[in-house]
């Protein structure tokens, strides 16, 4: 008979889990493994609410295993480190992002691209090597192999910095990989949510000219005045879109709903690059003529490797970049999820885990 989630492992843990595709979360008792030689045990202080958490609890992508404890923007304090751990000691401020394991031997792992390892283990809803399902950061503690833990910089606020663990690396990585860091070049950012708003801040730190492309005119003032974007394009305004044709060197598309790509492709200059980091649950329509006539490309990107995640955090610390957040209590999570579904947040919910997850 298989063990219950409380008995699978030796250390007791408490979190909030969704039990079915309604996505409603409620308290959930489970367990974590003993802290091994390579492990770091983290007392979780804050956890960001990523749109992927919402997709997962509602089984939008069709591969959720219930009960699921989401959360992969984890910031906390190391409470214990294993014998082989050299990078961290008890008391260190640390973070855990979207993955907690990989094969460590394939080409991707050897190139510090653990996120592309065919055997990557995501922070939640993935199988551990022992066959058990793992649980994410909407919980009081987590045990993680040191390779997948990052040092959290001292000058970054722990609550506002939590979203960097997913949103931050998800936009930073493609900016580096697709060569979007030449000062003075023009980057368009489609979608102004958790990912989009962090992308604006990081892009400005790279010295790029930034245009936010959004379907919500109401976001313009904040985009320009508060986030520092250079301009704002309402995607549903045909004349504004027309005047911006062929003006952008690159676009990062953070939109996770199904949406037309043609308008975005026309905004690109010749040799322009459209990088998509959102994960719609259906295929998008890709018109080929604009790609061929302008030697344009569309590429994907999915989080980033551990080395790059640390690099991104250090970059954000240097440039004082953190997310704009709304701090919530654990028991407000279901309301937060409903608001997130309507994009009613500026721009990331972060759960104050330590102060609100009651024993």
């Amino acid at each position, binding site marked *: 008979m298989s063990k219950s989630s409380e008995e699978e492992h030796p250390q007791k843990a408490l979190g909030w889990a969704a039990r079915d595709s309604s996505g409603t979360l409620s308290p959930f008792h489970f367990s974590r493994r003993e802290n091994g030689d390579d492990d770091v045990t983290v007392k979780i202080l804050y956890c960001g609410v990523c749109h992927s958490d919402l997709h997962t609890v509602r089984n939008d992508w069709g591969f959720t295993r219930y009960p699921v404890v989401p959360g992969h923007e984890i910031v906390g304090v190391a409470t214990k480190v294993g014998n082989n751990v050299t990078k961290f000691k008890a008391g260190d401020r640390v973070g855990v992002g979207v993955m907690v394991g990989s094969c460590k031997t394939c080409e991707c792992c050897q190139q510090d691209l653990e996120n592309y390892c065919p055997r990557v283990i995501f922070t939640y809803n993935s199988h551990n090597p022992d066959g058990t399902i793992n649980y994410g950061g909407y919980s009081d503690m987590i045990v993680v192999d040191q390779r997948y833990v990052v040092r959290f910089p001292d000058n970054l606020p722990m609550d506002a910095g939590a979203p960097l663990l997913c949103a931050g690396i998800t936009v930073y990585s493609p900016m580096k990989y697709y060569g979007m860091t030449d000062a003075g070049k023009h980057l368009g950012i489609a979608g102004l949510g958790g990912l989009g708003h962090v992308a604006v801040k990081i892009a400005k730190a790279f010295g790029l000219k930034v245009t936010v492309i959004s379907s919500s005119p109401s976001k313009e003032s904040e985009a320009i005045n508060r986030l520092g974007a250079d301009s704002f394009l309402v995607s549903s305004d045909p004349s504004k879109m027309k005047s911006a044709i062929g003006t952008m060197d690159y676009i990062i598309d953070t939109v996770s709903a199904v949406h037309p790509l043609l308008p975005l492709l026309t905004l690109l200059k010749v040799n322009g690059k459209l990088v998509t980091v959102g994960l719609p649950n259906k295929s998008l329509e*890709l018109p080929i*003529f604009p*790609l*061929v*006539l*302008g*030697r*344009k490309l569309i590429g*994907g*990107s999915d989080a980033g490797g551990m080395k790059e995640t640390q690099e991104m955090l250090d970059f954000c610390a240097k440039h004082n970049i953190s997310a704009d957040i709304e701090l919530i209590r654990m028991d407000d999570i279901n309301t937060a999820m409903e608001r997130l579904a309507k994009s009613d947040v500026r721009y990331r919910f972060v759960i104050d885990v330590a102060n609100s997850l009651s024993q």
Partner: protein
Amino acid sequence: MTRLPEEEHPNKAFGWAARDTSGVLSPFKFSRRATGEKDVAFKVLYSGICHSDLHMVKNEWGSSVYPLVPGHEIVGEVTAVGSKVQKFKVGDRVGVGCMVGSCQSCDSCTNKLENYCPKMILTYGAKYYDGTITYGGYSNNMVADEHFIVRIPDNLPLDAAAPLLCAGITVYSPLRYYGLDKPDLHVGVVGLGGLGHVAVKFAKAMGAKVTVISTSPNKKKEALEKLGADSFLVSRDQEQLQAAIGTLDGIIDTVSAQHPLLPLIGLLKTHGKLVLVGAPEKPLELPAFPLLQGRKIVGGSMIGGMKETQEMMDFAAKHSVKPDVEVIPMDYVNTAMERLLKADVKYRFVIDIGNTLKAA
């Protein structure tokens, strides 16, 4: 009153033109401009038949102006050069590809990417600076600005060199731009027609392992034995597709009909690139998950700039990359077009203009 094509310009010319959307070609008298100070005039000896010619004679893209003289894989011998021409002289073996003009001042032109210039002028069916319509290579002579003339190296036979001017550059450019030109990469080529067979040859010359991906099992033998491909994948065979998942560094997709991208994206390794050089009319479905999970790219490419076209021609001469052609007389052209429509050619028709185009 607009002038007749014969009277527009001072130099007489004749060729074959389509008059309407039936696409049927017939003899046509017209004229070419006087050889300007920067122009190179040449006697046309061969003209390749590109599938674009077929699309254009039937006005399938909606942009055709009749009468239409197609042909943008044109080779011949120089007969006159303008006073300011530096690079060519009478008797030189030369060619002209898909374009005969561009603005020479925009970013693209400055970066030697005239093919992406918004004011690029096509070799046929386009409006030239003097307001007249350009006529292509299914004709006895040609004149073009020196900038758009390519030298054909001596060791390339002219008939085989002709298709390089469009098919050749169309596949060579993306192999370079998308970094698929390094030795020991594994490159897939989708479609084994005019473009596809040249892509196989170039990729092999660049040191790649090449897999041809095709819907036609009967092309396998030739692909392996004659063209030098290393393997052949029948794209409708699920088992073959499964076995090849995640094996390709890049794919050059030459197919212009609607076709699914998902299986091709699946064949790519992580960081792999799918490059489309054929342009299906309607959008294709792009699944986001595979693109993201493997950090893969889908890109496009269209011919190449003039500098790169010359570089491609010189590379082809050095590595003996010669298209496989079926040389035909001018009056066979309508039959050739019908056969091309059925993909019944190995792998490019080339019209023997010099020997078979008679004055109208």
